[in-house]
């Protein structure tokens, strides 16, 4: 279905970066061919310095592209005025907004700027859009609050509500979940996902939250350090090894099996682990931290079995000589260490 629609935002062979005074180009990424469709949530991932912010600023028309063509609803972005862009595309930036003496309502209402007259007074219709935006972002209880007295998560939601009030079919967000705690991160992503699917907006957000991105994104744009951008459905990118390639570094790797980063190199002794699924998941972490290579099939000289007892989990360590019972991961680790 999506393939038949024209994309709301499209980049064709775009080269992004900076141009110095003398005309020399500092290319950040090139040959970018991507599109964003209505109702789609896309996460832009990539290591630091791969050009995520540059790409977002370029797509938002804030920074000139070096080469290529970006179109919003089929129109070249360079031919649109700032105001015309603002009616089609809103942006949430990483710029910290430190201003105070403004209520949440007024701040969200600033999003109506492209539609209001020279003085910026709100019409009845503007007010309704602002109210809907505040309710969609779950900020109803905060309307009278000074934006300076909000937590980081609340302020981020205000900036998102302001983008919603701008009532654009495309929203770009540069790291909206940075500096937020886990519940807030989940809430923001969930909110954006709901907005994309329910209101048919095309939403692009850059993030470092690999876990959340893999779970929430309809598609992922992955930037690597070789100035490339790879686009695809998250699961495809995991299964075809793109993730591992992009995030491959000396000290840690992307783990295809868990969809997260492996902090520890498990090159050490092999251990087989079996039993209750939840307990196995967490025990595996502890073992990897201890330097073991964990295998799920049995038959190794060192084997651990987890069973869920009536009250708690129990770990059984089995090697050639003896068998030991442990009541906690701590005990388990102690036993394993004593064997060394």
């Amino acid at each position, binding site marked *: 279905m999506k393939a038949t629609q024209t994309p709301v935002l499209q980049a064709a062979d775009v080269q992004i970066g900076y141009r110095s005074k003398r005309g020399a180009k500092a290319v950040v990424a090139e040959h970018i061919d991507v599109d964003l469709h209505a109702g789609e949530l896309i996460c832009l991932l990539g290591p630091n310095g791969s050009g995520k912010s540059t790409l977002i600023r370029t797509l938002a028309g*804030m920074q000139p592209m070096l080469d290529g063509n970006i179109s919003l609803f089929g129109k070249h972005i360079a031919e649109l005025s700032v105001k015309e862009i603002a009616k089609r595309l809103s942006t949430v930036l990483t710029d910290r907004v*430190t201003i105070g*003496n403004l209520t949440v309502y007024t701040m969200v*209402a*600033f999003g109506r*700027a492209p539609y209001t007259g020279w*003085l910026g007074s709100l019409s009845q219709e503007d007010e309704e859009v602002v109210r809907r935006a505040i309710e969609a972002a779950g900020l109803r209880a905060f309307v009278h609050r000074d934006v*300076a007295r909000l937590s980081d998560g609340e302020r981020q939601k205000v900036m998102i509500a302001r983008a919603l009030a701008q009532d654009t079919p495309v929203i770009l967000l540069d790291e909206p979940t940075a500096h937020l705690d886990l519940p807030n991160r989940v809430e923001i992503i969930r909110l954006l996902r709901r907005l994309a699917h329910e209101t048919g907006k095309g939403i692009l957000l850059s993030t470092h939250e690999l876990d959340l991105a893999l779970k929430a994104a309809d598609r992922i744009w992955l930037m690597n350090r070789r100035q490339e951008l790879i686009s695809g459905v998250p699961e495809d990118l995991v299964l075809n090894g793109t993730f591992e390639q992009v995030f491959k570094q000396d000290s840690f790797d992307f783990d295809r099996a868990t969809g997260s980063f492996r902090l520890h190199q498990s090159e050490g002794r092999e251990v087989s682990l079996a039993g209750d699924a939840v307990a196995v998941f967490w025990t595996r972490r502890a073992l990897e931290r201890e330097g073991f290579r964990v295998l799920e099939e049995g038959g190794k000289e060192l084997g651990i079995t987890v069973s869920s007892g009536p009250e708690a989990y129990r770990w059984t360590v089995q090697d050639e000589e003896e068998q030991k019972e442990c009541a906690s991961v701590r005990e388990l680790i102690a036993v394993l260490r004593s064997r060394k």
Partner: protein
Amino acid sequence: MNKHSEQHPWPDTSLKAGYLLLLAAGVAVLFLANIAFGSVPIPLSEIVSILISGSSEHEAWTNIIEKIRLPRAFTAVLAGSALSIGGLQMQTLFRNPLAGPSVLGITAGASLGVAVVMLAAGTITSIFAVQQLSSLGSWLIIGAASIGSSLVLFLILLISARIRDSVTLLIIGLMIGNMTIALVSIWQYFSRPEQIRDYLIWTFGSLGGVTVEQLWILALVVLAGSAMAFILSKPLNGLLLGENYARSMGLSVGRARFWIILSTSLLAGGVTAFCGPIGFVGVAVPHLARSLLGTNDHRMLIPGTLLMGALLMLACDIVAQVPGSSTTLPISAVTSLVGSPVVIWVIVKRKNLQASFS
């Protein structure tokens, strides 16, 4: 849902004129008080009659009110409003609570112009004396100050077209101001003491030297600058979130910045040309207005700042005239002496300066 909306009613976003009317009433009262106080005691009833019908028992009283006190009071209103609105615009543009109308070096430019005229001419003592008597000398000084501030303004606009970053522009403005002051100081070093004295007197600032005909020009300049500022309310509001956000909301930041700088230059340059450098008001009044109105919305803040500036300047001028005596204190010193404690008090009491620019 119903309960929800009762607990958190939607705000009324229409502009509230309550505080503004209060401020306007305050300006009216202080305006009258400003006229009433002076070295020659004139009964209040006579003042009212002169203001209304233009006649009085004593011809001299009519002259004093019409030729001296009214222009002086009007000058105070214009200077206070202009410097305050200039300061507000600079604080918003540079997102810096310490910015004022002088940050771009415009005041320094005016000083350089005046210094050139006063210190270069050999018979400068007479020129300053002329300023008090005929219009020629004062026009010379006004002209010099205007040319000085316009030159700096032109330089700043030229630079601002090339530099997109406002903080860089702020620093460049400060540096230009420093260079200008350094030039003046070199000039002073090679000048005779009496010449320096005249220049120093000019730097104390004065609201009393503006004649009726000059007042019209000053009024025109201030009106133009203030109108520009009010028309810029919407981009100024957008700039509160920073230039990138302003641009993302469809505001042409470059154009807005040009007009903001032009407006501030007219306001600050005009007042400095006619009244000399008057410090402090431009930095302090926007904070007082924000504190009183509890908002950063420029549609409210600009009229509020305008009235608050007029109010503060009238009050300072009353103090400067030292009611009941024939002495007059330099206005620039009084604005700082009277204004600083007020601002400290407001900041400590309301604690919301920090909230504006944390």
